[in-house]
């Protein structure tokens, strides 16, 4: 399966809201498989949203298994038309980077628990409760589907945005 090129800011697609998938047809299934392959291709990548690979559909894929911060992960999650049903009350600030914003990292507050409703890759509706790092990743990916980048979430530019340049 071909690895898709990653769109980088200022690509306007990254700042546009996505549209819901109405039919899980072959084109959408191929897109999902390509997104999974692309996510797996990058060693540190734990999630990918459709706009990052040039699609305007409301689809994200994620898999945090094997990540040191993941506790009891669900494994591969394909989120089609996801909506957040509930944010947990506790927030934690973590430093995020994004393949679509390669030169920066930022401190972003995220809910530590998330209740999600989405269709899975077979088209069945699912409710998921995600915790900790897995909840953080889902919020980052769903932000992409709403046209938001982590830079929209940092509270103070002075101490919350960092150049990642020294990391390459």
């Amino acid at each position, binding site marked *: 399966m071909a690895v898709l090129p990653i769109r980088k800011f200022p690509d306007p697609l990254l700042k546009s809201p996505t549209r819901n998938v109405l039919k899980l047809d072959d084109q959408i299934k191929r897109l999902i498989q390509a997104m999974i392959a692309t996510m797996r291709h*990058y060693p*540190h*990548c*734990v*999630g990918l949203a459709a706009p990052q690979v040039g699609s305007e559909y409301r689809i994200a894929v994620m898999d945090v298994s094997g*990540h040191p*911060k993941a506790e009891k992960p669900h494994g591969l999650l394909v989120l089609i038309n996801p909506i957040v049903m509930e944010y947990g009350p506790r927030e934690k600030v*973590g*430093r*995020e*980077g*994004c*393949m679509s914003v390669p030169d920066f*990292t930022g401190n972003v507050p995220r809910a530590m628990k998330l209740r999600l409703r989405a269709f899975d890759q077979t088209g069945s509706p699912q409710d998921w409760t995600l915790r900790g*790092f897995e909840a*953080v*990743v889902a919020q*980052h*990916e769903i932000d992409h589907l709403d046209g938001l980048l*982590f830079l929209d979430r940092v509270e103070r530019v*002075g*101490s919350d945005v*960092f*150049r*990642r*340049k*020294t*990391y390459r």
Partner: protein
Amino acid sequence: MARRWIVTALGKDRPGIVAGVTGLLYKLGCNLEDSAMTRLEGEFAIMLIFSTPQRATAASLAQAFAPLQRRLKLVIHLKPLTKPESKTPKPRGRRHTISVYGADRPGIVFRIASFLARRKVNITDVHTHRSAGRGPSLYSLLLELELPRSRSADALEAQLERIAQRLGVHVSLTSAEPDVL
């Protein structure tokens, strides 16, 4: 003669310092790169890296800055960056943040920083703040460092805690490695 420069500008805080310095560089056709600009009490400080459209001399740039220096009463220093100085530094370890806070007393920053220096731990960013209210003042220190891979974060934190105890302050060390999501 150089293409890349770092400038520092210091002066009493007032509206127009950022606009003055960046406006001058814009008119000279320069490109702003990394910068940090902040106010410490009543003083405003700028540190800024910029590149010039052609090679420039220190004298020509100093001349260009002179009117601004007079108008805003700034202390300006220009330093050319050589090719090797322009290279992005290689990371010297995993990025961590140390947070220290407690009642203000002399030596907090020095004790922490010299402890790190002896262990060849590189500090990349420091912010300190002292509360200016009535009563005993609170001091807070936030610094970022690159922890060499050969050093354990847990061991470093335990040693920092012993120093903090002697200083009567609180300390924590947390990983600041970003997660690429």
